[in-house]
């Protein structure tokens, strides 16, 4: 008999595959994210040319050797795009994870402890929610030296609020559940209750929020880089758009310098939105009946087989 852990893993994997097959949106989203993650991980192995290496004329058009053409310094665009994947995906993932960790912690603390702690934490959250994100990020980024780590922290600083709210609401509901009340009644410690009875039930929601946050983080990375607030020493999709924009790729007709990085951002955002929403629905299913719809119930003859 196989060890239970691998058996469980196999069952879990099979359940995931079934779920993916029933949710085409999740499948597409997952495939997109996986593809870009692989590209980010193994990018350097796939990069055909160096990203500081001049291989042809300024804004050289796409050719068999350079399928995405060359940039304003004659560098291979495909290589730049692959290099940019790494930074954009890294910032996207890291920022969303930091924000979900912070937001999850705040949400669980506020929801579980309640009282004035809850009030105070939620007030802070409220203020962060109203303050427009990008301007605040810009202000912080302007006074802080540009680096990838700073970029991650700046984005996470503004992303955690919605997670905190969602998780708090969920924890408030879970707290009243019989199993939690019973655990309390028999005197289980808070840490134990939170870890054994609450966290397992919000994991789905946390995963969904992380996946959804990736899209927002990638978006903000692109925005900050576009405004020249990214690390000038690194290449990201946002920075590629900025360079193309500032160095007149448009008026030079060099569409190849500008379409691919934006398309990559759009695909990652789309992928994470599709997958995140699907996980959210799976973790928190609603009956989802529409009482009014263009379609109505069907009338059918009685099949003989079902007559009894």
């Amino acid at each position: 008999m196989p060890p239970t852990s691998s058996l469980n893993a196999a069952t879990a994997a099979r359940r995931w595959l079934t779920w993916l097959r029933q949710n085409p949106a999740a499948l597409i989203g997952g495939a997109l994210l996986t593809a870009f993650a692989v590209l980010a991980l193994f990018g350097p192995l796939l990069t055909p040319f160096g990203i500081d290496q001049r291989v042809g004329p300024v804004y050289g058009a796409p050719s068999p050797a350079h399928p995405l053409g060359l940039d304003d310094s004659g560098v291979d665009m495909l290589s730049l795009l692959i290099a940019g994947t790494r930074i954009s995906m890294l910032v996207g993932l890291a920022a969303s994870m930091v924000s979900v960790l912070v937001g999850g912690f705040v949400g669980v603390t506020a929801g579980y402890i309640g009282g004035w702690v809850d009030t105070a934490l939620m007030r802070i959250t409220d203020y962060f929610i109203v303050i427009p994100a990008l301007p605040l990020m810009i202000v912080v980024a302007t006074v802080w030296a540009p680096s990838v780590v700073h970029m991650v922290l700046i984005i996470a600083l503004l992303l955690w609020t919605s997670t905190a709210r969602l998780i708090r609401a969920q924890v408030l509901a879970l707290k009243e559940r019989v199993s939690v009340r019973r655990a309390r009644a028999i005197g289980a410690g808070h840490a134990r209750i939170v870890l054994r009875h609450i966290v397992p039930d919000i994991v789905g929601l946390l995963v969904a929020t992380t996946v959804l946050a990736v899209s927002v983080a990638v978006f903000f990375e692109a925005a900050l880089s576009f405004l020249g607030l990214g690390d000038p020493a690194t290449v990201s999709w946002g920075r590629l758009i900025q360079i193309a924009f500032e160095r007149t790729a448009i008026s030079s007709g060099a569409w190849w310098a500008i379409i691919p990085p934006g398309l990559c951002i759009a695909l990652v955002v789309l992928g994470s939105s599709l997958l995140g929403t699907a996980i959210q629905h799976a973790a928190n299913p609603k009956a989802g009946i529409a009482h009014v719809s263009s379609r109505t119930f069907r009338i059918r003859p009685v099949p003989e087989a079902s007559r009894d």
Partner: protein
Amino acid sequence: MTESSSPLLEASDLNVWFDLPDGGELHALRGVDLRVGSREKLGIVGESGCGKSTLLMTLMGLLPPSASASGSIRISGQEVLAGGERAFRTHRWKDIAVVFQGAMNALNPVMRIGRQITEVLELHDVATGPAAEARARDLVTLVGLPDVILRRYNHELSGGMRQRVSLAMALACEPQVLLADEPTTALDVMVAAQVLGVIDRLTRELDLALVLVTHDLPLVTRTCDRIQVMYAGKVVETGTPADVYHRSEHPYTRLLFAATADVHSGREELVSIAGSPPRLDEPVAGCAFLPRCPMAREECMTEAPQLLQVASGHAAACRFAGQKVRMS
């Protein structure tokens, strides 16, 4: 035809299926017949999930798009099921109105109560303007509410008041048949009794026919002229309250009464019958009650029992109906 006029509401061989997300189907109603004559009060009872609420939705033509139905529904002699949404709409509220479950948010939260009553009067050309408002005042008075209620919103009302408003709304266009789906769930016993009192009084005063869907057996035996007991999407026994209560021929009915006898308040869902109903997403072979039946026999496994007439107006879907077989 022996009767002078056709029944107000008649359904025959109703089947309803729901599409399931995994591609399967749930056979929720499995050949149900129903007949409601003028001023008749029909009670439909059964455990939750037996199809009683689905039956009521089917009668109103309010099934969701994931459903499909077959059979026949006639309102005042006119076939409506085949005619679809359009055919149902000509009868809704004018001929057949409904009071939904007490636990439901059946009233629009952002529209004043008065408007929710007058809009239906206007829709069906009963009254408009000041006449409609006057009629709305009469209606709420009829159900025992003060007319200031008309200026209120749903959230300002108590559960009992909401159900009275729903009732007033249902009576607005003077329908001939009133459907009530668990009208007192989520109400406390006193309020439930009051609401039921109003329903009972008004059906009598206004000569209404009533279809009362509930899991509350004592209630239907008190209020109704006829009872249909449903199990797993089928009618398993039908008869007068006396037939069903004192001379019940189906083991499920007997167990249902035995179970209620302990609970008595009528507010608890019936849980005291051991076992659970069969899954309706796969074909049911033989008698659906078999796994829980104290008098099951070998032959019950293969053949599904038909409704057997045991006396005039009393029938049961059990192969032992009328044979005086004792429960073991």
